[in-house]
């Protein structure tokens, strides 16, 4: 029985690692895109002011 708990634990840990890694990747990509968007908007604004 204890042996089977080990496999259950491994399986759920692996699934959670995947989900957390994907959430982390989504949040990192979103903040990167938002930074890029802001810098492009700033660049356009500066060009138009010149």
């Amino acid at each position, binding site marked *: *029985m204890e*042996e*089977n*708990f080990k*496999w*259950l634990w*491994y*399986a*759920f840990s*692996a*699934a959670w690692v*995947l*989900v957390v890694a*994907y959430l982390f990747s*989504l949040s990192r*990509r*979103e903040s990167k*895109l*938002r930074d*890029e*968007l802001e810098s*492009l*908007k700033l*660049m*356009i604004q500066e*060009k*138009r002011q010149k």
Partner: protein
Amino acid sequence: MKNRSSAILAAASGVMLVITLYLTFLWVPMERTMGVVQRIFYFHVPPFFVAGAAILAGLVASIRFLITRDYRFDDLAVSAIEVGWVFDSINLVMGPFWARPVWGIWWTWDARLTSAFVLWLMFAGYLILRRAVDDPSARAVMCSVVVIFQAVGGVIVYMANRWWRTQHPQPVMGGGQGSGLDPRMWYVFLFSLATMLVLFGALLQTRRRLERLRREIDGLRRTVHSEA
């Protein structure tokens, strides 16, 4: 509004996930032959169906893109396929941890497992193709065609243990005579499936937001180049 619905879906999936864990570990009866390790079932099978739903969403969006050339459908297709890939990965990663104590092996190249692995590679291939093609129009058309093949792959995976004799168990749901689940196991399975579909919805909304940002950035880049 879209951010609000995404937040509501995320909160709902969080609450439902806690309930699913409670049902899986404390409420559902112990399976007689496999014991506690059978509880992997409630988190192994639903992601497979969610991956199927993702392919279906991707297929509908891709066909609509091919007809209308509206890039919002391409955004939906890539988002559905990427999130579907995560669920397919959960299904594939959890399976060997169930197989090892029950079959005595981690993996075998039977029709069901092999076709499932090929489908996972098709998900990965779609995402690699998106990065490899620069022209947005060609990229969207090529990827839409890939999703159509992927949908055929999804049907083959689903039918594999019905069409061929496999190490993977024959279907316990809708598998004909002798198959079936204890009603309480059915409730937990269906609740887990609902939870994962809500989680899929939340992740899909978030992923679509990224695609909208990317398209906005592409538009601004074109403005910068045209004004230079």
